[in-house]
Structures are given as structure tokens and as C-alpha cells.
């Protein structure tokens, strides 16, 4: 079976759960304690598609209020982006459009996924209110704590990066 490597970069504000999502996806683990990422953590997980093995090399980079503060070298060679925000903190999704515009300037034509994390902390009504206030439609509402939709975002991005539907 053919094997390829794809670099995935998780971006977003600090404290939104990028490291937790990566840990949940790669190691199926979760910790409530928040430990800030200083620069970059890199992990690898193999995703198997029907005729292709994809080595996802996941760059979990330190969160910043604005993505322009992230060293540009972190984005080099990226094949896909997961933009993570915290559903409980409006400041983390206020600038999604500007951040995505900036990233798309650096990395034109690469797929990205929006993930609203910490779904487990909101009630149904709160969630409905939050979704209605998002500046862009969000496909995935995730919880690194419960694992909800975590596998799905990486699977979807892998398909998009390899142009495969299954």
C-alpha cells in the first residue's frame, strides 16, 4: 500500500484545547489540567484509507490571540489546517475570518477545518446561542474531554488533503 506524509497544523487562540485534541486523537487520553504550549509539539499518527496509508504529522503550535504572531516557519510545508476555538470563550472565535485570511495568504489552496471545542461545557441552549453568534459556519463541535467528533475532524481533513471521499 502506498504511504505518504502530510503535515497538519493546529492553530487557534491559547487555551482552546489544541494540545488536548491532539492527545485525544493520538493517545486517546485527556487531562483537565491546562499546560500552555510554548512553541511546537509534534506527534504522528497513521491514518489508513482504503488504498493509502497517510502519516499525519501533527504540529500542535502555541496559541496566540492573533495568528500573525505565530512564527511563519511553523506553517512551512503544511498540507492542512485545523483552526480550533473554544465555544465557551467568544474572544477565541471573534477573529476567525481574519486569521483564516492570513493563513490562506501564507498557504493558498490547502484545506482547513473549523473545530469548536469544549462542547461538553455548554448546555443545549448555550450551544445554540453560541453557534448563532459564530462569524463563520462551523462543521465540527468537538470535545477533547469526551472524544466527540475528534476522530472525525482528522479523518475529514485527511480525505480533503488526499482528495479522497472514502
Amino acid at each position, binding site marked *: 500500500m502506498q504511504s505518504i*506524509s502530510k*503535515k497538519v497544523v493546529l492553530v487557534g487562540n*491559547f*487555551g482552546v484545547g489544541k494540545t488536548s485534541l491532539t492527545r485525544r486523537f493520538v493517545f486517546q487520553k485527556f487531562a483537565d489540567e*491546562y*499546560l*500552555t*504550549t*510554548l*512553541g*511546537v*509539539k*509534534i*506527534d*504522528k499518527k497513521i491514518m489508513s484509507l482504503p488504498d493509502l496509508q497517510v*502519516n499525519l*504529522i501533527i*504540529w500542535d503550535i*502555541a*496559541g496566540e490571540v492573533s495568528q500573525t504572531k505565530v*512564527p511563519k*516557519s*511553523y506553517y*512551512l*510545508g503544511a498540507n492542512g489546517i485545523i483552526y480550533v476555538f473554544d465555544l*465557551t*470563550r*467568544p*474572544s477565541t472565535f471573534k477573529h476567525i475570518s481574519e486569521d483564516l485570511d492570513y493563513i490562506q495568504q501564507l498557504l493558498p489552496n490547502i484545506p482547513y477545518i473549523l473545530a469548536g471545542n469544549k462542547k461538553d461545557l455548554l448546555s443545549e441552549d448555550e450551544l445554540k446561542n453560541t453557534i448563532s453568534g459564530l462569524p463563520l459556519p462551523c462543521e465540527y463541535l468537538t470535545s477533547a474531554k469526551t472524544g466527540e467528533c475528534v476522530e472525525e475532524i482528522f479523518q475529514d481533513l485527511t480525505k480533503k488533503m488526499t482528495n479522497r471521499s472514502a
Partner: protein
Amino acid sequence: MSKSHNALLEYQQKYLNQWCQFVLFDHNGNILVSNNSFADLHGYYGTSIYQLNFFLESLQSVIETLEATQNELFFPRMEIPFGEKIGVFDYTIKRIEEDEIYYIWIVEDNTAHNQYLSLVQQERNDTYIENELLQLKTQNQILQEEVEKQTADIQEQKRLIEKQKDDILDSIRYAQRIQQAILPTDKMLEGVIFQTFIFYMPKDIVSGDFYWARKVGSKSVIAVADCTGHGVPGAFMSLVGQNMLERILIEQNLFYPKSILESLDRQMFQLFQNDNRVHDGMDITVVIIDDEQKTITYAGAKRPLYFVRDANFQEIKGAPFAIGGHHLAQGKNFTEFELKIQPNDAFYLFSDGYADQFGGAEDRKFMIRNFKNLLLKIHHLPVAVQQEVLKENLLIWKGDCKQTDDILVVGLKF
């Protein structure tokens, strides 16, 4: 190989004061030489560096396209263990072009500096998040309190409105008692030569329809009126109308329906002539039955008189204008009709409420045609039965529909 060694030595000299690992590899990624500061890579010489390290694996395409002009990449604060050494490293990848192209990967251990930075950043982030969440909580509390206050205000307003509604309804119910007390009783037509029924169904508590009757000597005067509107304004007009009829009969001694209507119209015109905002009035039927002469005299303002004689339905149309309203008193000419009464004659005086009632399968008006047919069908029955049939028929027709208008039908059976 000596050239690559030289290159390595050159960089070692440059970074002499720092603890660094240098790894030199060729354009195919094969490890050529390393100084082994953090890890001994001797065993990997000649193998691909891209297979050994996630970081470089994900950057292979970028490294391979480094050019002489842009020949250096810098990656600060990489939190990736190097061999068995755990720490926070700064990476530099540099392209070296001599006889051949080499790449040198310089790994600087800045863990101590970065640990301090990490503490500062952790505190900054914790404080920021804590403040933001606190601010949101406060905002939500303020919002919650505002909602609670507004809810309490609305409840209070609702309570006030309900009380006002109750007060108004109490007043109207009391007014209903007054209106009912003013309506004629059976005693007023005692000893007459005919039987009567009155089917009276106001739309609201008080009504704009009214009936009025007086017996003076051998003459019985009966009127059925439909005042403009319904409810409270209609009820006020009905009081005005009844009062005027009373005065016409007692003070003016007018015993001709035509004269009664003309007098009514004059009084109504005079009453409202100083206020051009009031255009109200009434449609009315007046009949005078003379027991001695066995006659019935009729005049109507926009209301007809129906009667059934020998099983034939007949109608006498009234004048085409109402009492009061926009028309000037001088311009109205009411007509009077006199009939000899025959045994078993049935006469009907009524407002337009019965025929205008919406209902039935198609939610339409009952219509005058059906009303006439119904009266023809029941005219021979005792008056109490006629009244009951009219009521039952109306309730069935109306079904769940709201009552459209005040309803009044007065039947006289000889």
C-alpha cells in the same frame, strides 16, 4: 567527507559557547556526520534522516527547495525530545553549498531560558482566560438580573391589566343589569290580542340591539332597533334611543310609526349636531297594533317587516336610511303601512344579526334567504317553540365561530 567535517567544525566553533547538536546530511537526507552532543547518531550514518525524525519528515519538501539566496530556516521552541534528551530546543536548518549541497541541522538547547518563558506564558494565559471567563460570568449575571427584572415588570403589568380588565368587566356587567332593567317586561304588553317571543342574544355583555314596548289604551307600540356598533358604544346609543322613544310617546303623544321615526331622527340630529365626530344612529322597526281596529301600522328605517299570512311569506321594506348618522333630518321621508290583522298572522321584527351570523361548513353568513325560509317553516308553531327553534338553529349554524353581531328577533303571533 572531509569537507563536511570541516563544515561541521566551522559551526561547532561558531556555537562554541552553547551546547548544540549538529547533524550534517546530504541532499538525499542521508546523515553524514554528527557531533553527538545529545544523542549518538553513529549508527544512523548513511541512513535517511527523514525516516528518523517527525519534524524533518514533515519538512522534507521544504528543505529540498531551499535555495542559496534563502538558505536558512529557524524554528524556535520545539518541544520535541531529541533522542533521550527532553527539553525545549531551537532548530536551525541551513543549506551549505560547496562542491556539493549539504544541509546542517543545528539543535540548540534553550530549555532553561524557555522554562522561564513557559512560566511567564502560563501565568499570562491563565490570568487572561480566568479574567475572560469571569467577565462573561458577570455579563451573564447582569443579563440574567435584567431578564428577571423585566419579567417581574411584565408580570406586574399583566397583573395590573388583568385587574383593570376585571374592573371594566365588573362595570359592564353592572351596566348589563341596568340595560336589562330598562328593557320592557311582559307586564308592559299585558292584555294584548297577540302572543310574543323575544329572542335576544347580545354579542358582548351589553348590546346595541334593543326592543321597546308600551301599551297605551288599545294601542301597543313595539320597536326593535339596531344601534351603530355593539358592546358599550352600542349600549349607550340604545339608552339614548329608548329614552327618546319614551319622550315621543309620553310627551309628544305621537301614535304614528312614521311620526315616531321622524321625531326620533330629529332628536338624534339635534343631540349630535354640535359634535361632528359622532355619526352614530340606529336602524329601527316600529309597529303600532290597534286592538280595537285590528290593525298593525308599520314604518321602518333600514329595517323591513316580515309577516306570514295563510302560509305566504311577505315583506314590507322600510325606508333606505337610518335614524341619525350622516343624513340631515330634513331630507328623510319615512313611509307608513297599515294592514288589517287576520287570525294566525305572524309578524317579525328583527336586527340584522341573525342573518349575518357566520358559520356552517363553509364559514359563511346565514343569509336573509335562509332566515326567511326558517320563519316561514316555524310561523305556525307556538311562540315559545319558535323562539327555541331560532336559538337551536343559530347555535348549530354558529358552531365554534364567534358571534358576529348582536342578535334580536321579536315575533308577534295573532
